[in-house]
């Protein structure tokens, strides 16, 4: 039985469908039924080509050109010179031995940042999701509290924490009041890096908590009930039931967090500017500074660096997908 709303919708859609039917029948006769699918895919392919594929081609084109001109036609072809410049290193573990030392400092900073940030964030997100999945008081309120920072703009997040941590910030005022004495957190390289990790975890944890919470709620209750009847310990339930059944969701969280971690830029840039020195300069900031902020603007070097980052991200994603497939196949 159709509702009144359905019948109105039908009245609107039917003439449109009839109007489309005529040219589609013509196309079907012209192309054949098998090729007609391409007609339906064409709008999406065009959009994908314009906004995803074309920029990649453009990026590759810039990466093999040099100079400081913006227009490709004005840029000399240099082949792999930009890649060679980035990879010219006596010892990759020591940025000072590299020709493009700032690139390698950014690479290592990013590696450490991603390792710490993803590790800490996933662990805390999982813990928080497990707690929020239980029947606790004011559960809805706490879910909102943990998700709230995700809604903030990265620049707002950075400014909030800058006001708290700067020399005359809230934290130092509190420490002075307690008699402990303040500290210039953002001028000390190690502390600035540590606070950047903290800020990033604080800002993004809510998002991953939400995904893990959805994953936890998708685990059938009867599995837990069976475990309870078998008197399995809480740790055993977590290790043998929760973790294995949550692993597909965990993989999604890991891949997303990893990619997002490597792309970290705006909040840390607004927080520390990449300093002190290059202590919190990550790879995207390096690309931005070489390509857009510095003088001269080295678009080729920036494009080459961004392709290297893209390559690393593709490899990491493929490895993770392979691991997941392997674990799914037992």
């Amino acid at each position, binding site marked *: 039985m159709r509702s009144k709303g359905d019948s109105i919708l039908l009245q609107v859609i039917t003439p449109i469908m009839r109007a489309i039917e005529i040219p589609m029948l013509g196309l079907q006769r012209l192309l054949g039924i098998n090729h007609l699918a391409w007609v339906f895919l064409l709008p999406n392919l065009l959009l994908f080509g314009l906004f995803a594929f074309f920029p990649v081609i453009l990026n590759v084109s810039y990466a093999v050109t*040099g*100079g*400081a*001109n*913006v*227009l490709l036609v004005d840029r000399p072809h240099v082949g792999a010179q930009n890649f060679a410049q980035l990879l010219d290193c006596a010892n990759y573990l020591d940025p*000072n031995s590299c*020709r493009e*030392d*700032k690139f390698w*400092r950014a690479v290592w900073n990013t590696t450490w940042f991603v390792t710490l940030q993803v590790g800490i964030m996933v662990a805390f997100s999982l813990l928080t999701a497990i707690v929020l999945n239980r029947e606790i008081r004011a559960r809805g309120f706490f879910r909102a509290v943990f998700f709230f920072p995700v809604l903030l703009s990265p620049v707002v997040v950075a400014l909030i924490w800058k006001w708290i941590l700067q*020399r005359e910030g809230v934290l130092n005022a509190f420490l002075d009041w307690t008699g402990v004495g303040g500290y*210039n957190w*953002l*001028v000390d*390289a190690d502390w600035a890096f540590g606070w950047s990790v903290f800020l990033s975890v604080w800002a993004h944890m809510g998002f991953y908590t939400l995904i893990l919470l959805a994953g936890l709620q998708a685990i059938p209750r009867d599995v837990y009930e069976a475990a309870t009847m078998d008197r399995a310990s809480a740790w055993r339930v977590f290790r043998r039931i929760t973790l294995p059944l949550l692993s597909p969701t965990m993989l999604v969280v890991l891949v997303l967090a990893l990619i997002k971690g490597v792309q970290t830029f705006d909040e840390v840039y607004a927080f*520390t*500017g*990449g*300093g*002190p*020195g*290059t*202590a*919190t*300069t990550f790879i995207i*900031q390096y690309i931005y*500074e070489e390509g*857009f*902020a*510095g*003088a*001269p*603007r*080295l678009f080729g070097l920036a494009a080459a660096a961004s392709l290297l980052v893209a390559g690393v991200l593709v490899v990491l994603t493929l490895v993770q997908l392979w691991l997941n497939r392997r674990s799914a196949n037992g």
Partner: protein
Amino acid sequence: MTHLKLFGTTALALTLAAPAMAQEIRFMCYSDGNECEVYDDVLSRFEAANPGVDVIVDVVPYQAILENLPVQLAAGSGPDMAKVTDLGGLSQYYLDLAPHVDRAYWEAAFGDTLGWYRGAAGGNAINGMHSQLTITGAFVNATLFEQAGVAMPAADASWDDWAAAARAVAAATDTPFPMAIDRTGHRFAGPAISYGAAIVAEDGTPTLSDEGFAAFTAQFVEWNNDGTMARDVWAGQGGATYQDAAQEFINGELVFYYSGSWQVGRMDSQVGDLFDWRVVGSPCGPVGVCSGMPGGAGIVGFAQTQHPETVAAVIDFLAQEDIYAEVTARTRNLPAHLGVAAAGVDFEGASPAAAAALSAFAADLADVSPAAFRYQGYANNRAMFGITAERVSQAIVGELSVEDAVARMASDLEAALAAVK
């Protein structure tokens, strides 16, 4: 038929009138104080005298002038005119005003500063009007000196003398920072030249690694590490990001602040009678040079404009002596217009402290080294400013030794010059 005739006549009239109709001129402007506001005001007189011309002053942050404007110009989507500080670096985009203005007047009024806008290409084009002449120099908190009972060093005192005095004052008055220099290669250059750096040799060869430059780098790093300099300013940022210490000085937390004449308005309005402040110019280095860096901003038109004559007319209007003098007085800047400078400027609403500060800066112009003028006019100076800020900061935080930082500055400069070749 009557309707058709009417329609046809109207269409023809609109077509013929189109070029004479509103010419919209977009002026990208940033302010150190109130410059854009004053330009907007005086340009309303130009608009009144030139019906159909609409000059829109787009006020943007300084960072947009540094970072966005060059990309817009390269992409052919820049404004018609702008207030810029990378005078020589953007010269390839400038509109030559010469065909539209009185060359003799401009050459008499702006003299050598016209050359700063010609970049590496040289020639005799008139590319821009130097709207505010600046010079770097030091502001000192005279009240802190008085409270500490420390005598202020004499006019020909060295950087070492000032460092010792500032440390003594800070210690006696429990002030957090004895000294600070703005985080930019431009401000760093004045003292570096005073320490013997050539930076841009007479034959135009640039260097950031000669003995004088290395000597001041070592001294500056040492001062940052022993607490003489406010470490927050250079170590608290990454990349080539600009950072000043004006707020620390205004808050009374800083004894000696090396910045420039453009800060006078801000000091005047924000320090008020909280304490007495004074401009002492640029201290001397061990080689006997006591140089600051000249600089400033100028108004330029861009060759990609659709209305070159109108843009030239707008800039020419601003360059007229009476208008220039009014803008200078209202914005409390040093004039680059030689006629206005010779006649003297009665700075509007300036306190005695601000007037004295501007006079002190103006007097200090005589001490500016030719090397400093060469550096200011050098087309690739922005690249050199950025390299200095980045590498010196790395030396301060310990990522590089002073020797390595100087070596990196040399190789960075070589790479930058190769890229713009």
